[in-house]
């Protein structure tokens, strides 16, 4: 092989690599997807401008109105949540956020620990990991979820319904790591502008959907038992998060967001909160009598689904939790903060959507809370 050929080969490979990377970038995931835009939004934040994150499954983004927390209290708490986000992903999500942000508080919702949420669908994992930038942490996050999925199957495999098996995580599936293998066929539905521009959420990861956010469906208030019990595998998952938090001296707060679920699911979440409390981390059970009055959640008007609050419920939860972090972590009331334009813009957008959806000013819900 002549020198010229070696040089040509190297240049060709570089071109090839650039092209392949461009294709991977373009077809990584459907960028019109909610989780992608939430993560794109997070990545577009300037370094060390976010105060904290709130991690969990879909109930987190339904409950957390980041623009409101900013506008009312000057707190920048970004929701990093995905539909059915596995607890096994928590460390990976926090690690990803810590790469660019100095997090003063990390709120973790424990709903993901319920056994009903344990059947890990590949789609749930991909929604999250394919939205993250390619990195070692992303690979480790996939590995953690895949390992947990294997452990789960080894113990509870017999209980998994046959028809659900095809939806589960396949540990040998290479597309777990390389989304392109899974998404390249999106050319059929057309590649949109968002695929090129990687658009981010304008409302800082908050969830607003005309179909659900402005709809109320009365829920039966839950019976919260006193018992606490969690199976060893799930205990391990919580323990890993606790150990990680301790090791890195993180201000983690374990919360149980308002929901209306069967009694046995609260027994599991109680156990998770108990473990966190025993380890010295603060916990907040928003379904308990202790906080219910202060939160003033109305089961007739603030939910659209047993797991999800609507935007009115979100305003109440956001107000409560923001006040909590301000009181306990000295956040908020920082009018001179840099890079505020996009946060101010997000408030305008959120407020407009809220008021258009409910046909009432957002302040009316806020003033209700203040009363």
């Amino acid at each position: 092989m002549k020198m010229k050929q070696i040089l040509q080969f190297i240049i060709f490979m570089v071109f090839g690599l650039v092209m392949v990377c461009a294709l991977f970038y373009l077809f990584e995931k459907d960028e019109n997807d909610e989780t992608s835009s939430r993560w794109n939004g997070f990545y577009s934040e300037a370094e060390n401008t976010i105060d904290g994150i709130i991690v969990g499954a879909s109930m987190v983004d339904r409950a957390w109105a980041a623009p409101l927390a900013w506008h009312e209290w000057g707190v920048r708490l970004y929701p990093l949540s995905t539909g059915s986000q596995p607890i096994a992903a928590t460390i990976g999500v926090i690690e990803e956020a810590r790469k660019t942000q100095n997090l003063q508080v990390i709120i973790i919702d424990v709903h993901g620990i319920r056994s009903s949420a344990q059947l890990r669908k590949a789609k749930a994992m991909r929604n999250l990991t394919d939205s993250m930038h390619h990195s070692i942490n992303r690979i480790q996050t996939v590995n953690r979820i895949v390992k947990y999925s294997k452990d789960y199957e080894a113990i509870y495999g017999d209980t998994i319904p046959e028809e659900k098996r095809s939806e589960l995580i396949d540990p040998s599936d290479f597309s777990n790591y390389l989304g392109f293998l899974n998404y390249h066929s999106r050319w059929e539905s057309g590649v949109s502008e968002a695929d090129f521009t990687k658009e981010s959420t304008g409302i800082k990861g908050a969830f607003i959907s005309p179909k659900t956010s402005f709809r109320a469906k009365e829920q039966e208030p839950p019976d919260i038992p006193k018992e606490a019990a969690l199976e060893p595998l799930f205990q391990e998952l919580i323990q890993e998060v606790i150990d990680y938090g301790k090791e890195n001296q993180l201000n983690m707060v374990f919360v149980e967001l308002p929901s209306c679920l069967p009694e046995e699911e609260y027994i599991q979440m109680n156990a998770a909160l108990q473990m966190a409390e025993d380890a010295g981390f603060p916990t907040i059970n928003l379904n308990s009598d202790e906080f219910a009055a202060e939160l003033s959640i109305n089961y007739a008007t603030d939910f659209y689904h047993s797991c999800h609050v609507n935007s009115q419920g979100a305003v109440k939860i956001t107000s409560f939790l923001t006040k909590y972090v301000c009181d306990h972590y000295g956040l908020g009331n920082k009018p001179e903060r840099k890079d505020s334009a996009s946060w101010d813009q997000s408030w305008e957008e959120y407020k407009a959507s809220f008021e258009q959806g409910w046909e009432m000013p957002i302040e009316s819900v806020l003033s209700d809370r203040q009363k």
Partner: protein
Amino acid sequence: MAFVSMKFLFFLLVVCSGYFIMPMKLKWVWLLICSYTFYLLNDVRAAAFIIFTTVITYITGRILGQINSDQKTYLKENKTVLSREEKKCFKAKNITKKKRTLFTAILANLGLLVFLKYFNFFAGNINAVLSNLSLQMEVPMLNLLLPLGISFYTLQALGYLIDVYRDKYEPDRNLAKFALFLSFFPQIIQGPIARYNQLAHQLYEPHKFEYKRVAFGAQLILWGFMKKLIIADRLAPFVDEIFNNYISYQGITLFLGALAYGFQVYTDFSGGMDIARGAAQILGIDIAVNFERPYFARSISEFWRRWHITLGSWMKDYVFYPLALSKGFNKLGKRARNIFGNYIGKILPTFLSMFIVFLLVGVWHGSSWKYVAYGVWNGVFISGSILLEPVYEKMTATLKINTKCFSWGFFQAIRTIFLCSIGRFFSRGVSCMAALSMIKHTFTVFNPWVLTDYSFYELGINERNMIVLVAMGLVLLVVGIMQERGIHIREKIAEQNLYFRWLVYLGALAVLLIFGVYGNGLTSTVFIYQQF
């Protein structure tokens, strides 16, 4: 390990890197290790079968070689002493000895193949007959393992044995080297069926890294991937839908299914061959070409000269000629001459041998009556064309048809595609009866509107996928035409400006990555011929 997978590409990278790093003397050892690793990664249990075939064939080859060599030495030493009769007698004795040895080895190798591949077929049929006769007996059905590539390496081994028997070449004296000849990884899954004198020396000789060969090999692999992933696997859902639910379809829809299957199996098989040839070419080894644009053929016999060429040529050398030139067939020809006249007497041995060859080709594909019917279908057309050749000549002369012009050639090619497509009903149909039913419903229902009402877009290929198929079909056609004209595409591209060349290569890669039908780990569906 599927050819079309990330694992294979990684494996190939390791094999090639290791091969070029390896000292000259050890290169073939590296290939042997890699070939067996490849085979074991595919199916550990099947390794015993390929080792059995290798050892039996090697030992038999050595015995046959020894007899040949002893005979030559003896005749040379006693050239002046022995009379002509004595020499003849000695040769006859040796031939008997050789025949016995050869038949034992054929019986062992072929017997294993037939047992594993066809036992349950025979058992099923015997049981059906016994049941019809109301006999309370049953041949048990066995859960047999069909080792990967057994249909290919068995024929390769038999070809070698027959050639050594015929004293065409010396037998291999190194068992390990011979094991490499039978197990060379690019061709173990689905051929081509190599000849010892064409392949073995290439495997044993060391090859240095050659930039051009490596580049050409990689290009051939890319082309193979494109055929398989963009065309074959895209056609698969359409073909599966029609053949698996054939009762729901009629007329032209059924024919389109058969036509699509023809193109699916062509791009699937020839794509696999391109990958195999490309992989071998990178290592400096040229393996036989198995396809020469079969859909350009003007007759079924020409189609079979262009399709799965190595199987056809194997059948020609080891079945057709031995049969056609056998004493039995000669006698038959003579008798036929007395009864039916000179012409029939002359062509009968050829006609019958050809028919048997195609029957065997059909049966080689699998153990089912549908494959027997597939063989008969092709055998009838090919034998028929031999028989009716004078009639065709008269007909074209009477109708004053210019057989040299393009339109006649085009007509013949379309006719061949049509006939081959009908034959596909047998090879892909779920059963022989299903194939017959499909043929019946193709020709008894007239529904040309399915071509214009877009109803077939609901059968597994939507409009966008159809556009991709048409575009790739055009690329395939242009490439085919250029190759027919003797243009070596890769050489031609290599002559172009660097920028254009890179644009072509990177463009092809991008097209493959975007439009290829693949999923987890770049894996595609299993190659169709891998199952044969």
